[in-house]
């Protein structure tokens, strides 16, 4: 089987497994997995920029939040129904990514990280500042009654799960396809040796710009989906913590692999779920995992799998 066919088979297989799990899992885990899949969409988006293009952003929460608030405010204040509101969320995230890209891509390395962090902080503070509309730290709830698409009630656990799966599948298949195409290979070239890629005739700046926009829009899609499926919009999702999470997930799962992000989210979700039962200081786990990853496993779980056993893993 050719490389591309194998990759497609893997991704479709994963989607099929996730589909089956909808009907096999007990309610608690089914609900968890729905949440995990939406967050994994966020991680997939982050992976495009970090794992494939090699740009470390510390401010992706602003894109997630742009999608979340875009959809949330469109429904709450604008009275829009879910589908056009989702489009508003996507457009908000896309627009924000474009603006941030145009500014932040003038910097490199550490400066890029700090600039993205600063813009994200400003976005978070802005959400707090306009608390009258955004509900500030507390946020607001989107009424159950409005969360229906084509007669399907999104608050129904099974419908919600399948909706989350739909969003994740699109993100997964899209990035899978993108990485097989020439565009994806050039992104990897930019990551591996930017000057060499430039001197092979590729417009590195344009590629980075598109990578930021695609990454930010996917993250925004996840944010919009989260608001729609779980009915809550809040400034916490724009805080620094939600910029660190995707980094953590992708590093753990395997940066630069397509299924690594999902694995990372599953792992961390259940690790934190378990430890928050033990102590309120569950973020300690996140800290320890980050340090251990930095020291011993920079390639992450799927990265190790690819290195040792499955060299064709996309």
């Amino acid at each position, binding site marked *: 089987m050719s490389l591309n066919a194998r990759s497609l088979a893997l991704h479709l297989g994963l989607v099929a497994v996730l589909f089956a799990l909808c009907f096999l899992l007990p309610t608690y885990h089914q609900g968890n997995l729905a949440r995990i899949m939406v967050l994994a969409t966020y991680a997939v988006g982050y992976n495009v920029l970090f794992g494939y293009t090699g740009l470390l952003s510390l401010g992706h929460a602003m894109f997630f939040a742009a999608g979340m608030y875009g959809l949330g405010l469109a429904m709450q204040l604008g009275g829009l129904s879910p589908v056009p509101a989702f489009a508003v969320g996507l457009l908000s995230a896309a627009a924000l990514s474009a603006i941030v890209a145009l500014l932040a891509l003038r910097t490199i390395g550490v400066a890029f990280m*700090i600039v993205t962090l600063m813009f994200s902080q400003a976005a978070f503070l802005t959400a707090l500042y306009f608390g009258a509309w955004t509900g500030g730290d507390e946020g607001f709830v989107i009424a159950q009654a409005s969360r229906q698409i084509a007669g399907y009630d999104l608050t129904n656990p099974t419908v919600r799960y399948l909706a989350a799966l739909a969003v994740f599948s699109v993100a997964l298949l899209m990035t899978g396809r993108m990485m097989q195409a020439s565009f994806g290979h050039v992104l990897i070239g930019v990551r591996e040796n930017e000057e060499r890629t430039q001197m092979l005739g590729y417009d590195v700046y344009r590629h980075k710009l598109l990578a930021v926009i695609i990454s930010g829009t996917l993250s925004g899609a996840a944010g919009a989906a989260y608001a729609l499926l779980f009915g809550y919009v809040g400034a916490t999702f724009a805080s620094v913590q939600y910029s660190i999470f995707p980094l953590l997930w992708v590093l753990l799962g395997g940066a630069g692999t397509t299924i690594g992000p999902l694995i990372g989210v599953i792992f961390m979700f259940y690790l934190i779920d378990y430890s928050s039962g033990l102590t309120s200081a569950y973020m300690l786990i996140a*800290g320890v995992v980050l340090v251990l990853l930095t020291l011993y496993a920079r390639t992450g779980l799927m990265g190790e799998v690819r290195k040792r056993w499955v060299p064709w893993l996309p």
Partner: protein
Amino acid sequence: MEFGPHLLLAVLEGAVGAAVLALTALGLSLVFGVMRVVNVAHGEFFMVGAVVAWFVADTIAGHPAVGFVAALIVAPLVAGLIAVLVDKLVLKQVAYDPEATIVGTIGVLYILQQTALMTYGPEPRPVEAPFSHRIALPWFEWGENGLAMFYPWGLSITSYKLFVIFAAATVLVAFWLVMSRTRYGLIMRATQLDRETALAFGIPVQRVYSIVFGLGAGLAALAAVLIVPIQQAYYLMGAEPLLLSFIVVIIGGLGSVRGTVVAALMIGMSDGVISVFLSPTLSKIIATLLVALVLVFRPQGLFGTKAA
């Protein structure tokens, strides 16, 4: 209180903040200047300083001044030792790779923060100042008899706050003297300028790095001990000093000591003044956007030199 005295009060309060910020930011700038790494856990060393100060003050009975002096010694030491440990266990192992250091220190941030949560608890707690006398401040106004001095009600400052400004200034001057006049300072500056050559001259670069990292943390902790009688010790208090230190170091120019001090004065004063007239949230938004834009359009800051 009218505008004039109000402004004076804001300026004085700002000066206190600026003094503490200058020390904290200096720690961050020193680490970046000599080691070329960004320590994202820097704010947590500040918090460690405050929390340790609380523990010391709580343990030592008697006059609060005794506990305070003890804290001034113990807290920076503890923070410094933790930092040296982090350097040896984490930073050295990743060979000070910029990206790995940032990710690793984010991890350290959460470890320190959550450990404080587990040991110290989630509530903010006060530490008593070693001394505190209210000093009324005079204001001048044109009266019937020409320029008259009077004491507007509410325009005052505590002796402790004046002490903080004085103490911070002393430490800054002492630091500058050490850096520019002593052999240790020379070694640090040499390592900052050219690591390879420093190695060739027999300077133990690895040890310098550990000491510098410890010193950076110690400065932050010292600043925290000074401010904790005015603020309170709280496990989440590291976030704001981190953000502000970042702003100062970037605007002042990464690695430039003079720039750090001047920028700290600017940021600290304006943060204090602006916060009086604008909402603190809005002034923070402006500050963060300013940092981002400075990095984008003038990456060398106000005082740094453009990297070749």
